């Protein structure tokens, strides 16, 4: 889409674009290029010689069992964050959509978690489940479940999943609610007159009409789980115990910044770049399509 009426000025548009483009190139594109370059070379321990090695860093990365373990954890983590988060948000949105008067009041409470930083969410949930003083850990113990996410890897992973879901719930809820409220009431009334009960109406009318929103949220949540949850993990488990909650973004940070394995970290960066590119393209292709609905 283009404007019919424009201004003529040779220099001005470039000046207006300069700040945005400068920052884009200096802090986004150039470092990304650097990451790609570094993934293809090996540097001496003393930083003197760099040798171009083609895909040797990637071969090393893909033959590393720790990397595959981290990839598996990330996939499980992302699936669970997406499924659990979307299910709870959808349930709450459907219920809020039913209660006409209450919806705004409930909404006011359900939007809070969005404002809480992922790292703060991590600290909060870590405190709730703290093996020594956490209130949830205490209750679980009374039910005979011993909770210690500092020692038990699968408990740690589930805790990170809960914290990440909690942090994202407002976003999912608001989009589902908006999607539900945009469904024409006449369709639902027609179904009701034909004798369809609330459950049937939900599965045959509302759920299919909600699928564009649902699919959009699916992609956004996968992106969130892959890239937005660094703070949750770092504040809650630091990737531990062992490497049981080391998701891929945490591994890039850990290997590159703490471990100083630049080639390996750069190769990991490039893999993640490909992931986020594919997801972003899917997201945008989909939004273009949705416009025609």
């Amino acid at each position, binding site marked *: 889409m283009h*404007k019919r*009426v424009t*201004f003529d*000025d*040779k220099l*001005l548009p470039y000046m*207006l*674009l300069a*700040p*945005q*483009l400068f*920052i*884009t190139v*200096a802090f*986004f*594109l150039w*470092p*990304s290029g*650097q990451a790609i370059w570094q993934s293809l070379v090996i540097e001496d321990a003393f930083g003197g010689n760099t040798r171009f090695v083609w895909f040797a860093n990637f071969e090393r990365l893909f033959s590393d069992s720790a990397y595959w373990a981290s990839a598996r954890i990330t996939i499980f983590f992302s699936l669970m964050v997406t499924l659990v988060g979307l299910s709870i948000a959808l349930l*709450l949105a459907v*219920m*809020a959509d039913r*209660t006409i008067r209450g919806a705004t009041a409930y909404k*006011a409470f*359900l*939007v*809070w*978690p*969005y404002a*809480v930083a992922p*790292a*703060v969410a*991590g*600290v*909060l949930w870590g*405190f*709730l489940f703290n093996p020594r*003083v956490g*209130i949830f*850990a*205490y209750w679980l113990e009374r039910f005979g479940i011993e909770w210690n996410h500092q020692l038990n890897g699968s408990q740690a992973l589930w805790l990170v999943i809960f914290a990440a879901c909690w942090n994202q*719930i407002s976003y999912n809820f608001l989009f589902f609610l908006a999607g539900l409220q945009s469904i024409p009431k006449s369709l639902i009334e027609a179904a*009701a007159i034909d004798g369809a009960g609330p459950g049937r109406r939900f599965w045959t009318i509302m759920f299919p009409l909600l699928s564009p929103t649902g699919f959009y949220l699916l992609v*956004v949540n996968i992106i969130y789980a892959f*890239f937005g949850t*660094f*703070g949750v993990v770092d*504040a809650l488990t*630091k990737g531990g115990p062992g490497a049981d909650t080391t998701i891929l973004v945490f591994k*890039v*940070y850990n290997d*590159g*910044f703490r471990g100083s394995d*630049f080639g390996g*970290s*750069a190769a990991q*960066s490039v893999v993640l*770049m490909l992931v*986020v590119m594919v997801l*972003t393209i899917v997201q945008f292709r989909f939004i273009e399509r949705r416009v025609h609905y």
Partner: protein
Amino acid sequence: MIENRPWLTVFAHVVLIFGVVLIAFPIWVTFVASTHDAPTMLRSPIPLLPGSHLIENYSLVLTEGFAQAARTPLWKVLFNSLVMALGVCIGKIAISIIAAYAIVYFRFPFRMTAFWLIFMTLMLPVEVRIVPTYKVVADFNMLNSYAGLIIPLIASATATFLFRQFFLSVPDELTEAARVDGAGPLRFFRDILLPMSRTSIAALFVIQFIYGWNQYLWPLLITTKEEFYTVVMTLSRQANVVDGVPQWNLIMTVGMLAMLPPVLVVIFMQRQFVRGLVETEK
């Protein structure tokens, strides 16, 4: 309401109340913890009702800070967070609105190239280019500075797209009328387009303020001096001290103060918040 089914309405309210309690519970526990003294918070089970040490805890943390991870008074740390959040959100809005103006209202070579370059920032979150971005910031001598905390984050494809979308919806007749009256491009931007963009700017402000305040990985990378720490990273450091007994009452006081500004923004600007959330995704 399509039909009257009282039991279903009751059920809906029960589910929602349960949901709200579950969502609000972590925040409640944090608040309660920030109102007790340290020994109480080390005896399990911890209390679920507020205690009497609220003022004591908050004034201690704000004016003196507490030992273990960082001893900076928290008001300084909160000030850093505020500078960063405002810098990021004002910077993003300022450079995005002029970039969108250039792309929509001018015809020039490489216009679409510029558009796609900006678009690419969407695909390159900090998390995938940690080490080289750190190096660039170090080369610019921006480690441990407000400039380093703010400037590298203010490129924004979403904000540019939002303003582009809005400008495209502005009728051409307005531009024509302005040109007939002899207004140049800068005058048109300042006197007509900018006032018309008020609601979009407000919506973006809310979203980007939260974004800036809640940054974690970025300040973690480029600050090594305590005087530039932000409140979110201070909280995470204090909650993860390895040695010594954690002072949960004070840690959770920091937690409350770290959450308060963005939560207040969401509560008091809820309309703009929801609008911003929905619009930045188009």
